[in-house]
């Protein structure tokens, strides 16, 4: 029983990190109507930026997380401006195809760039808070506690912005109907830029938070990226509520599944494969996901 609770808690913490990444992807999908195949790489960039902020400049690692979010936000804005903007000005034919290839290509570019700049070796980021905390029979690494609270705070702040502020209303308006939003005076290019920047910044923040728990490397973004694809299909493309619930679900399935479904040694090896099987089941049974509407295309 103790073991079960400990694993469930672990799954919850991982799920919260997945939520940060997947909400970002979902936000981008709901506004820009495209899947960002470079999402995992934005997560990796966030991890490295915060690693270098804290090791080279001696900045507190927790502050470095937010600084890296700002850097990745700017990177996202630049990506959107140079490579995705043509999708919305009518300069590109076959938009869906272009969107898939260009984001995937940017992801590959970032991977190779990170390989060249930072080297292929894994690195360990500085601890947020060393030591462990014991609550009853549970013992939790302090890093993981800090990460959970920061992740929850970021998600709540984001939900507040989307649901309560004018900018949030503009985001929702563009996601519902780009033309109608333009008629009432919303600059949809600016909203695109904002949504893409915030979306990848969330992934970057998650990467920076992962740093002290797991190791960081140029290839670290691939699996979180794929998991966020699984989650947004599971939760329903473009649904933020779906992304949150899907993330927590996937975190628990991985954590509990790896010890209860298979023998432990195999279970650990296959932990990262559960998501793909889950994706296959969702596509087979209910392709629109838990909270999804019919897939919306770019006009």
């Amino acid at each position, binding site marked *: 029983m103790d073991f079960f609770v400990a694993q469930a808690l672990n799954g919850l913490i991982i799920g919260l990190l997945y939520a940060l990444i997947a909400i970002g992807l979902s936000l981008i999908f709901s506004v820009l109507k*495209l*899947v960002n*195949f470079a999402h995992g790489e934005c997560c990796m960039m966030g991890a490295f930026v915060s690693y270098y902020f804290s090791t080279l400049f001696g900045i507190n690692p927790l502050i470095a997380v937010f600084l890296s979010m700002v850097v990745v936000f700017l990177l996202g804005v630049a990506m959107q401006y*140079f*490579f995705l903007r*043509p999708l919305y000005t009518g300069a*590109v*034919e*076959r938009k*869906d*195809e*272009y*969107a*898939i*290839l*260009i984001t*995937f*290509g*940017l*992801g*590959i*570019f*970032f*991977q*190779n*760039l990170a*390989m*060249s700049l930072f080297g*292929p070796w894994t690195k360990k980021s500085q601890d947020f808070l060393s030591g462990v905390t014991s609550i009853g029979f549970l013992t939790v690494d302090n890093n993981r506690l800090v990460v959970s609270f920061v992740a929850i705070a970021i998600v709540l702040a984001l939900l507040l912005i989307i649901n309560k502020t004018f900018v949030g209303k503009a985001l929702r308006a563009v996601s519902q109907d780009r033309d109608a939003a333009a008629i009432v005076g919303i600059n949809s290019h600016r909203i695109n830029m904002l949504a893409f920047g915030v979306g990848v910044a969330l992934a970057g923040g998650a990467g920076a938070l992962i740093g002290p728990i797991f190791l960081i490397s140029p*290839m670290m973004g*691939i*699996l979180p990226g*794929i998991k966020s*694809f*699984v989650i947004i*299909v599971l939760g329903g493309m473009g649904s933020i509520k779906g992304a949150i619930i899907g993330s927590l679900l996937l975190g628990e399935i991985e954590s509990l599944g790896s010890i209860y479904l298979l023998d432990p040694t*195999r279970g650990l*090896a*296959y932990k*990262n*494969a559960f*998501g*793909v*099987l889950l*994706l*296959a089941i969702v*596509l*087979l049974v209910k*392709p629109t996901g838990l909270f999804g509407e019919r*897939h919306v*295309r770019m006009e």
Partner: protein
Amino acid sequence: MKKNVIGAGIAILIGVAVPLVFRSYWLHVAIIALYYALLASSWTMLAGFSGQFSFATMALGGIGAYTSALLVINVQLPMWLALICGALAATVVGLLIGVLVLRMRGPYLALFTIAFSELVRITLNAEYQLTRGDMGLTVPHLYTTVSKTPYYYTMLGLLVGSLLVMWTVLRSRYGLFFRAIREQEEAAAVMGVNVVRYKIMAFVISSFFAGLAGSFFAHYIGTLTPNSMMEIPRMGLLIAMSVIGGIESLAGAVAGAVLVEFLQEYLRALEMWRFVIFGLALVLILRFSQNGLIYPIYQRFAARRVEPRTVADAEA
């Protein structure tokens, strides 16, 4: 049409002459280049002509490679039979993926295949008792000679034969269906094309050739590891080859693969930076010249007198 045949003839002649000029190491590079050319043209047939984007080409090649290798090692199947089994295994997997995912429109194929590639890699690494994982599986060679020339001609033959089949399919009415689906699925459906069936068909054919390339590669290279064969960056390199060559042309895919493979050997001194250059080239070409680099040059010089083109007559 006539010009295409002449062009293909010249290309084949150059291909046949290569072993006379290149020795050992560069001949090895040439074989790998032809291997990528087959993978890239199978991807181009799917993506460029049918508009379906898959990131599983390398993984399907890997399935072909491991199936063929394991059959030879564990069941002592004759080599040529194992090669065919490898290609068929990739075809069956392709069919299953197609039936599962291609019922939907939108980015689902891309989403699923990228996840599937990782699933295959994880599984091959995890089942190390069978596959020896990252330690590398030692695979019997196709020929007993140390010379690379027989391998080169085998690969060239495979490539030319495969291209001929793909070209025939794309020139047939099925090719027309593929292009109709690419341009607009709704319109194709209205005109009576069974959209789902032909999307699956394109994916299955493409999977077969990926598996064929993979299983030949296994018996040429002699050592297989899941990571070197099907990591996501390798898929990126493959797409860069197709895109640089021109995404809507099989000849472009072959030219792109040969160019990129030779460049990446030639630029070895740059270490990882050469892949940064290819990555940058990929996004810039996508952004500014969607027909690639090589195909527009070809069009400019070789096909200067453009015949009145119809969709049915578009060059394959």
